[in-house]
């Protein structure tokens, strides 16, 4: 591409690549300090043959058949015949024809149970449907955002290419290393080469800082502990951020992240729809799957209306008749405030004790293969476990306020995600936290301890743009570092027992909180690598073991450490000689937040990177 006289990276762009909605916020590289980010309306097909502009891009992808839409009706201003439909029309049409719809691509991207680079989506659709991989699907959304933004900029007479801008791409804090790497790959496939990753709860916190201006320094103080409670359409994510002081400056550190939970607003809408379905069917009416979908959509609106206006006692929900019989087939039910209380507040956010544990994953002999949805729908139980897990850790990420039992006791709560817009749900979360922290010997939190960011739908994208600006030295930064502790698996040298794998030890290679832009050598251990053929390392990680230091060997970890896909390295052989080369391991957390592991030869003449071996995990070996 020819170089132009003006710099091509004129913007810093925050992209929230969400499970159900994506958004984009930009801020000029030259913008003044304190300037707000700009959220452009994104042109997209809203019906066949009709382009509309929406602030959010629904993260849905529809694979159209030739006979799906009238000829020419999928044309976009920048592409007369796109092969895939993205956005609002994909969401709408996908509800009518689910076998061609790719939804929740992001959840698939973080699910190690499938090969995330192979063409598996739409999940379990018939062979005649063209498939894409979770990485390609994510990349398609990014490419769409790129083309749409470029179109808008061009139309405004300031041509620019999104791929040339400084991009901050957000991911759930609970994304493991591989999901992060795959997200970067998706960005690479969209042509983005200046990408930094940022965790969503941190982005939400930045959005809060942006919305407060300099006032934020008066609202939190040294020793505070902020819980970011992010419940979106498809996922729930918790993080803890500590406030400390260094050289007279307030320093923010992300001290803990929770596990990846596939639990969110979609589950809640479905639960309400099921309640009304039962009510209608007990009157002798029948609801089919299409009407259930409509019911779910209408329950969401009724829920938002009831949560938005405390004076309403109930909202009527109608399901329209099928066929041309509109009036005759119309069914009507009332969604009452008591329903919301019973199903959402008490069902999804029950009052539980601080030692509550979520129910374990079902162990049914035959499970339908698919996304690993959280087995326990109670957000508060997951929160209890998250805060209790912090009792065992060292203060790598800054001082955490703990109670008598070791439970992490937040001093502030920042709510994020569409679900947490609802006042009764926020109140419930606060009520439950207060119950716990009073028992731990602290004062209860009130509304002054709830940090309010405006516009939760766009907070993550805006916060990401703010962070991008902060990286350029204009604004505050949260110190984050590695969100997990990472290990290499080492098989014990023991006599083998038939049918039993050799016991595994875990060598800590990246400690929790290892900062971006630093590297470290794993001391005291060398590996013999065979040249000319791939050597495999088993790779493990933990969100809870923060006490392990680099080089520590862990033997017994219960369920605190999980195994990920193996790592692989192939050393080139010199003229076909067979040899084993001694290497040391080196860990490197890059500036963009990616983890790299290197093999360095003893004599220092060679360095090879360990690559994630992204194949589908192999089935358990047969005895």
């Amino acid at each position, binding site marked *: 591409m020819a170089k132009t006289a003006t710099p091509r990276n004129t913007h810093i762009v925050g992209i929230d690549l969400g499970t159900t909605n994506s958004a984009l916020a930009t801020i000029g590289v030259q913008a003044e300090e304190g300037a707000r980010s700009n959220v452009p309306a994104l042109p997209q097909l809203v*019906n066949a*043959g009709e382009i509309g502009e929406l602030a959010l891009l629904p993260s849905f992808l529809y694979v159209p058949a030739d006979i799906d839409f009238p000829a020419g009706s999928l044309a976009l201003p920048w592409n007369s015949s796109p092969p895939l439909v993205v956005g609002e029309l994909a969401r709408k049409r996908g509800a009518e024809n689910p076998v061609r719809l790719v939804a929740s691509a992001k959840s698939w991207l973080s699910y190690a149970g499938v090969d995330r680079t192979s063409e598996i989506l739409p999940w379990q659709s018939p062979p005649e449907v063209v498939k894409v991989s979770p990485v390609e699907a994510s990349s398609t959304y990014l490419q769409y955002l790129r083309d749409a933004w470029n179109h808008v900029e061009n139309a405004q007479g300031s041509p620019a290419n999104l791929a040339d801008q400084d991009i901050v791409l957000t991911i759930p804090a609970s994304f493991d290393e591989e999901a992060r790497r795959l997200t970067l790959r998706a960005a690479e496939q969209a042509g983005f080469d200046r990408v930094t990753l940022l965790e969503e709860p941190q982005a939400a916190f930045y959005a809060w800082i942006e919305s407060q201006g300099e006032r934020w320094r008066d609202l939190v103080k040294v020793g505070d502990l902020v819980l970011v409670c992010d419940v979106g359409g498809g996922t729930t994510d918790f993080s803890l951020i500590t406030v400390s002081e260094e050289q007279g400056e307030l320093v923010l550190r992300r001290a803990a992240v929770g596990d990846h939970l596939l639990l969110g607003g979609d589950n809640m809408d479905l639960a309400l729809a099921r309640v009304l379905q039962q009510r209608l069917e007990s009157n002798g009416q029948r609801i089919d799957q299409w009407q259930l979908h409509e019911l779910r959509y209408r329950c969401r609106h009724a829920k938002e209306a009831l949560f938005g206006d405390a004076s309403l006692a109930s909202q009527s929900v109608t399901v*329209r008749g099928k066929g041309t019989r509109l*009036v005759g087939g119309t069914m009507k039910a009332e969604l009452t405030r008591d329903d919301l209380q019973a199903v959402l507040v008490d069902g999804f956010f029950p009052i539980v004790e601080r030692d509550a544990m979520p129910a374990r994953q079902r162990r049914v002999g035959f499970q339908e293969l698919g996304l690993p949805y959280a087995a326990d729908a109670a957000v508060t139980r997951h929160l209890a476990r998250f805060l209790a897990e912090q009792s065992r850790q060292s203060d790598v990420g800054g001082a955490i306020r703990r109670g008598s039992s070791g439970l992490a006791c937040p001093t502030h709560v920042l709510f994020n995600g569409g679900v947490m817009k609802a006042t009764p749900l926020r109140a419930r979360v606060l009520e439950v936290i207060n119950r716990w922290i009073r028992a731990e010997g602290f004062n209860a939190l009130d509304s002054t301890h709830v940090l309010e960011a405006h516009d939760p739908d766009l907070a993550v994208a805006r916060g990401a743009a703010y962070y991008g600006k902060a990286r350029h030295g204009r604004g505050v930064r949260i110190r984050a570092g590695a969100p997990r502790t990472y290990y290499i698996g080492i098989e014990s040298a023991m006599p083998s027992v038939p049918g039993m794998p050799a016991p595994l030890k875990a060598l800590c290679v990246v400690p929790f909180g290892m900062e971006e832009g630093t590297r470290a050598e794993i001391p005291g251990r060398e590996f013999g690598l065979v040249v000319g053929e791939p050597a495999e390392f088993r790779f493990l990680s933990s969100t809870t073991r923060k006490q392990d230091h680099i080089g520590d060997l862990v033997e017994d970890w219960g369920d605190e450490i999980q195994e990920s896909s193996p790592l692989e390295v192939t050393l080139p052989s010199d003229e076909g000689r067979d040899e084993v080369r001694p290497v040391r391991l080196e860990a490197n957390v890059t500036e963009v937040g990616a983890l790299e592991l290197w093999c360095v030869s003893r004599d220092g003449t060679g360095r090879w990177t360990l690559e994630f071996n992204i194949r589908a995990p192999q089935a358990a070996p047969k005895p």
Partner: protein
Amino acid sequence: MMRLSIAFRCFFSLLFTGKISEKILAELRARVRPATHPEETPEAAPAGTRPPATAAAPRPHDGTERAIQMLALLQRDGRLVDFFTEDITAYDDAQVGAAVRDMHESCRGTLQHYLTLEPVVAGEEGQPVTIEPGFEPGTIKLIGNVTGKLPARGVLRHHGWRAGQVRLPDLPSGIARAVIAPAEVEIS
């Protein structure tokens, strides 16, 4: 017979213009295959699944196409045409009310989205207004004691409605222009 006709038109179009005209292509694309297999006789097809006539059907002119489009949008979002064509005499008011409340909300949204509705005469209903000479009778209807003498004073009974901005999407192509609601067929 239909295929023969299209084949001839394609042939002459290619012969004289070097390409097949968009009009013929649109018709070709718009042809709907019957639900039966080709070897089955058309009589075996259930009623209503035969391909609609294409070239023979009179195509509406542009003005009527826009009117049909507006109806199609109100039908798509609010099922307005279903409502008007349904015999509702047998249903009680509660049943009609449930359907209408829903339809009202949807159609209202459609109108707001595609049109900007403005009053013809600014001012509150029930308040006095003056009609100046030179007004266009198509915009204001005078009732009561209309002598023909202007300016005339009166009371605004209905402020009227005028379409300000109209933001209708592009018209669909071919025979779909006459469609108010596409038929729905669930494939099992």
